[in-house]
């Protein structure tokens, strides 16, 4: 401090007062600095997952999951828990395996020829790759919303009613009406469509169609909702509506979202997983991943240092 000759109340630029005596005593410089906040990172060569992959009382668990497309090793021994009532975002460059991993969570990869999955994925303790598991109810329990809204070429009502009917979740028309109404309400679409339920779902705007698809997923009582870039075909306003909806749905469901928008991941998720060339590089609380990542590859990606 060089300012010894100053009067105690010296003016600063803003006309505020600086208390020099307080300045001298105020700071405990003996406190240990938080050196881990410095630029000390796990190097790019390191491919083991950094961060806390497990959670207490998980909804889904993945252990040493490998996915192959023929000879292509698309997911390399990924272990990750998906917690209850949380939104977990999967980010990473194209081809990193995030969508492949997402699709292995409800066995959507079964439909792809030459695709092989090893390791263990459980939902509420049940191994979903057990040969005895029927994928139809599994995909109701773990629902999916796609990049482009894909309503059935049917009425708004039938888009929602179809699932509950084929899964035998309703006994009569009254019950079905109730399911349609609650699902549309939960998806934040009810007020916009309640007077035209008989009109085709394809006549809605893009954002409304996507909410219709979310309502359709909700109608069959899922536990987990997988979303594969649900807003990439939507304008910013429709995107904000969906993001707000995701936040509300979290109270009842577990949501896994794949997104290319890092801002979206940071806005909607509580945990973020970063994938790189089939490896799960880093997993952690979203605020940590975006403010203080521990792996150099994560840092490169989220700060826009690609390739």
């Amino acid at each position, binding site marked *: *401090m*060089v*300012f*010894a*000759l*100053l*009067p105690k*109340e*010296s*003016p*600063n*630029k803003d*006309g505020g*007062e*600086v208390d020099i005596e307080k300045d*001298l005593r105020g700071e405990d*410089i003996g406190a240990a*600095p938080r*050196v881990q906040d*410095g*630029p000390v990172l796990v190097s790019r060569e390191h491919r083991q997952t950094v961060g806390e992959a497990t959670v207490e009382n998980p909804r889904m668990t993945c252990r040493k999951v490998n996915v192959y497309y023929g000879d292509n090793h698309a997911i390399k021994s990924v272990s990750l828990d998906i917690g209850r009532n949380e939104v977990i975002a999967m980010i990473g460059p194209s081809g990193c395996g995030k969508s492949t991993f997402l699709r292995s969570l409800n066995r959507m990869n079964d439909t792809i020829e030459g695709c092989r999955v090893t390791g263990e994925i459980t939902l509420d303790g049940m191994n979903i790759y057990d040969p005895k598991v029927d994928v139809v109810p599994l995909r109701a329990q773990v629902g999916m919303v796609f990049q482009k809204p894909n309503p059935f070429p049917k009425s708004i009502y039938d888009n929602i009613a179809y699932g509950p009917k084929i899964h035998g979740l309703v006994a009569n028309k009254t019950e079905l009406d109730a399911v349609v109404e609650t699902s549309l309400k939960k998806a934040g679409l009810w007020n916009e469509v309640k007077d035209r339920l008989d009109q085709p779902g394809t006549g809605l705007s893009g954002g409304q169609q996507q909410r219709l698809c979310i309502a359709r997923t909700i109608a069959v009582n899922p536990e987990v909702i997988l979303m594969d870039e649900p807003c990439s075909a939507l304008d910013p306003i429709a995107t904000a509506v969906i993001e707000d909806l995701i936040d509300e749905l979290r109270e009842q469901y577990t949501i896994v979202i794949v997104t290319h928008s*890092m*801002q979206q991941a*940071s806005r909607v998720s509580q945990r973020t997983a970063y994938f790189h060339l089939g490896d799960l590089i880093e997993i952690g609380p979203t605020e940590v991943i*975006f*403010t*203080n*990542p521990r792996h150099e590859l*994560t*840092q*490169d990606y*989220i*700060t*826009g*240092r*690609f*390739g």
Partner: protein
Amino acid sequence: MRKEHTVKAFTQELELLKSKVFEMARECEGQLAKAVHSLVERDTELARYIIEGDSKINRLQSEVDELAIRILALRQPMALDLRNIIAAQKMAADFERIADYIANIAKHVIDLESISLEKPIRSIVKMTNSALEMLRDVLVAYQELDVEKAVEIWHRDREIDKIYFSLLTQLRTTMIEDSTRVSKYNSSFHGKMLRTDR
């Protein structure tokens, strides 16, 4: 090794921001060196020059703020980049404040023109030299992102505090020994406070 941003203009903006903070720091360094010179040499001309020079640092701080806000809005920086920008803004605010204090020292030089200050000046020069060294070293630490060096510099503050407190004791003794000069000190300080506090 840090990689470059894919968007090169982003890297350039961050470098511009950093260079502005460095410019502020170098200005502070120069101002502080001049301030101690003006005090030792009782050079009121130089003191006035220092007071005028403060506006340049104020202007630089505004530029840092503007640029930082622009980058935050247009680039949406994350992680390390975000931290760098926030740190640059904080440092700019600190340098602006340091410059204000230096200008205050220069104002005192003008007010104390006719008063002999030999003893305290020795301590003040010592404090100034330590402070100058801290300023210079902290820039190296910033440039090299050297956390350990930064912590070491931070702890050096204690040395300056020690000199300051012994100087205070020394001044009190002087005032007791030669009370005829107390009113002169007082009137000059009061004058300063009335003028600058509005």
